[in-house]
Structure formats: C-alpha cells, structure tokens
C-alpha cells in the first residue's frame, strides 16, 4: 500500500500570554491510500490541532515548531498559502464538529457550493451537487440548496457539509469530531453515512473523535493520543481487546463502564 499522508515528528505549540503551550509533541504516523485512521483521545490531547495543521487552518497564535506533513511526498508546511489553497478543499477536505457554525450564515447553501467551485477554478456543476446530495440521503436537495445554513437541522447540515467536502473528489477527508455535536440517533446516522462514504467514494479518512465506539466502528487503524503525544497505535481489535498501554486500557474501560460492558457497538 502506498502512503498518502505521512506526518513526521509534528510538534505544534500555542503562544498563550508569552508562554508556549505544546499541544502536539513529536507525533508521527502514516495514512495509506483507501485507509481509515481514527485518532482518539480526551479533550485537549491535541487531536484537533493535528487536523487543523493538515488543512493549514491553525489559529494565529499557533506555531508549528518542527515536523513535516507529507501529502503524496509534498511537504504541506513548506508550501506558500497561495499554493496550499489548491490542495485544501480539492485534495484534502475537512468536516467539523458543528456544521452550522462552520457555514456562513448569510449565504445560501447553493452559493456556498458555488464559492467552493470558483475558489478552485472548477465550473459550477449544480447537477453534480444535487446528485451528490441525493447520494448522501439529503431529502429534497433542491430546497436544501436554496436554504440558509441556520434553517437546516444539525444532521442535515452535517450531510451538506460532507457533500461540500466531497464534491471536488478529494483524496483525503478529515473528520474532526463530526458526531460530537449531534444527538445520539443522528450520530448513528452520520457514522453509518461516513462508512458508506468510505465504501462508495475512493477517499481515505482521518477520523478524529473522543468516542472509542465511533472509532472502532469505522476505522482500520486507531491512534490513541494523550497530552499531545501518541500513546498507542493498533487495529480496533487490538485497542479494544489487547490494549498495550495503561492509558488505552483505562480509556476503554471507562467507555465500557459507560455502556455497562456492552462490547458490540450498535452503530
């Protein structure tokens, strides 16, 4: 298998009141083509920072101290913003935790799609968008395109956002806690949808979540992060049944306790 994305010794810090707070410390991992990788960890473990460094949308006070992010052999961190924006949205896409706040409230969904096409110099193909929305099980896509983001329900907005991320056929889709802001039934739908996405679209995925259940139900491989560092890497079975580190074991155990020992995830 060919590696699509290689992250090498990535170290990212935030400047907070003059001091440097390290959010990601020496993290290295590889993502192969057509693979789904999940990064699990508690809040503040640095998993979202990794996602944002890959798409180049880190907040202004963040500094990439060292490391490389190689996408098909090109170091994304060395690209100028003008070069990088051709990769973002077209080759690498991202979906977020709260889709509604990540869409401009003053633009209709159709215009948001149109902007994306124009940003990448692709001719706006409204039939393609409608078709994609239908494939993502959006009911009445015509109406959705003429709605404003705040008129959509959370689940619908997440589907629209997934469509936005997939419409230019990216090679890599990063999902940054895509289910955390949704309620449980919609969560299950979105996870099922993402599983279908990985089967139907030739796209690799990095799934960032704090929910081990979501991670094991969708990923080929799981990375466990704690306090900015990589704790463990393994297949879902390894992580669930044969955790090597104590942190992973306690993470799994706490989820187990939550689900009262249910090990067959219902997603």
């Amino acid at each position, binding site marked *: 298998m060919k590696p699509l994305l290689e992250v090498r010794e990535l170290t990212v810090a935030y400047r907070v009141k003059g001091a440097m707070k390290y959010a990601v410390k020496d993290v290295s991992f590889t993502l192969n083509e057509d693979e789904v990788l999940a990064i699990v960890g508690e809040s503040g473990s640095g998993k979202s920072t990794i996602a944002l460094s890959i798409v*180049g949308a880190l907040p202004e006070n963040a500094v990439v101290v060292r490391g490389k992010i190689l996408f098909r052999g090109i170091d994304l961190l060395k690209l100028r*913003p003008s070069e990088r*924006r051709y990769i*973002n949205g077209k080759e690498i896409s991202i979906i977020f935790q709260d889709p509604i706040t990540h869409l401009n409230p003053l633009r209709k969904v159709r215009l948001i799609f149109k902007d994306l096409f124009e940003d990448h110099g692709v001719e706006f193909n409204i039939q393609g968008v409608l078709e994609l929305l239908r494939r993502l099980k959006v009911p009445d896509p015509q109406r959705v395109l003429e709605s404003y983001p705040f008129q959509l329900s959370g689940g619908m907005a997440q589907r629209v956002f997934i469509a936005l991320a997939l419409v230019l056929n990216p090679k890599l889709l990063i999902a940054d806690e895509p289910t955390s802001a949704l309620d449980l039934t919609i969560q299950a739908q979105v996870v099922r949808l993402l599983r279908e996405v990985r089967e139907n679209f030739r796209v690799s995925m990095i799934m960032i979540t704090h929910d081990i259940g979501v991670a094991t139900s969708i990923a080929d491989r799981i990375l466990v992060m704690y306090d900015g560092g990589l704790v463990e890497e393994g297949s879902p079975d390894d992580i669930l049944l044969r955790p090597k580190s104590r942190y992973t074991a306690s993470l799994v155990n706490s989820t187990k306790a939550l689900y009262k020992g249910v090990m067959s995830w219902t997603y």
Partner: protein
Amino acid sequence: MRKLNSLTVCVVLTFLLGIVGLLADQVAPYDPLNTRMFRGLQPPSNVNLMGTDQLGRDVFSWVVYGIRTSLLVGLSSATMAVALAVIIGLLSGYKGGIIGNVLMRVADVFLSIPRFMLIIVTVVLLSPRISNIILVIAMFSWPEAARVVRSEVLSIKEREYVMAAKALGSRDLDIMITEILPNTTPTILSLWTLIIAEAILTESALGFLGLSDFNYPSLGVMLMMAKNAIFVGGWWVLLFPSITLVILILMFNFLSDKLIERLSPRLG
C-alpha cells in the same frame, strides 16, 4: 392604537426631508440668496413663512436649501469616509501585518489631533468650495469608522465559518469579500448613518464660522445671522434653522441606533 415604530418614523422622516432637499427648487418660494434691502428682519407671516433675516433673505427658502446642502454634504462625505474605512478596516483587520499596523497608526495620528481645528485649517487652505468641504470632512471622518470596522473584522475572522472557508481553500480576498464583509453590514450601516449626522453638524459649524460655499446655503450661515438678529428680537432667525438642524442630526443618530438593533442578530 398601534405603537409607532421609531425606525419607521425615522425612515419616513428621512424620506420626507430627502424629498424636500431634492425638490428644493420647487419647495422654496424664493431664491434664498436674494437679499431685499427694506424687508430685513420681518417676523413670520403669510409672505415669509419663517420671516426674513437682516439682509431680507427668506428664512424658509434658506432652510429648504439648507436641508439640501446638509444632506448632500452628509451623504457624500459619509459614503466616502465609510468606503475608505471599510477597505482599510478589512485590510488591517484581516491581513494585519506591517500594512495593517501602519494604516492603524495613521488612523491614530488622525484621531489624536483635534479634528475640527484641522478641518477648518484644511478648508481655509483649499478654499471653501462644496467639493472641498465634502472631501475634507470625509478625510477626517474615516479613522474612527476604520477602527470600528477593524475591531468587527477581528472578531468575525475568528468565527468558525471563516476558518472552514480557509480550510476548504478560499482565497484571502474571497474570504474578505464573501465571508467577512457581508457579516459586518449592520455595523457599517449604523456607522454610515452616524457619520452622516456628524458630517451635517460639521458642515453647519463650518458655515457658522463663515466657511461655506456661497452657492450652497448652509444652515450654519443662518445661525451666524441669528447670532446678531437675536438681540433685536429676531427669534425666528435662530429658531427655525436650529430646529431643522436638530431634527436632521437626531434623525440620523436614531437611525443608526435603530438600524444596528434591527439588523444585528445578537441583539434582535
């Protein structure tokens, strides 16, 4: 009875005054510049609705033309100032960096010098033609507005949809124009009306000091006449122009307040 909506009242008043200003030629019974030697300081009557000043000029006609001048100066200088402020505020707020900082320091310099004195000096240097008055007022009004726009941009650019647009490969210029600019509209509109009010006041103050375009009767000029007329009982020379001025300024201030209340989703 239905409670009157103050925004509606303001808008209706603005339109009325706007029509008066536009149709000043038709509305005014006399040429405001026409002086009549033996009809000075006449009290209000059927012939002169608001009386006449010391030079026999019809105060009503003067007020009507004064509204036109006020609106002309207010609208055009505020529009110029806001346009400049939006460009500078967007650039320095979103891009920051050296250019942004330099622009803001320039604004600081403008803000730290007494504005009105500078305006007087510049108008005197350039000669008080209407176009110069408009330009100078615009030139000294943008810094405040630019600061406000900038602070709004600074807050909007941290919003998640801006970050998402960036993550999906939007160009900076597109982010500024399609993501940030539309979301500052409430602020910009409210600033615009506020600056109109300020510009009207400044124009009148210039007129009061004798710096006005002869072809554009200024409410301030009539107030200057009133300064002397009031001592010989000519209250009408003071009363009518000042009421007009107060209404004009108050209206635009209200409009500014009500607009931001109505348009801002956070307050609505």
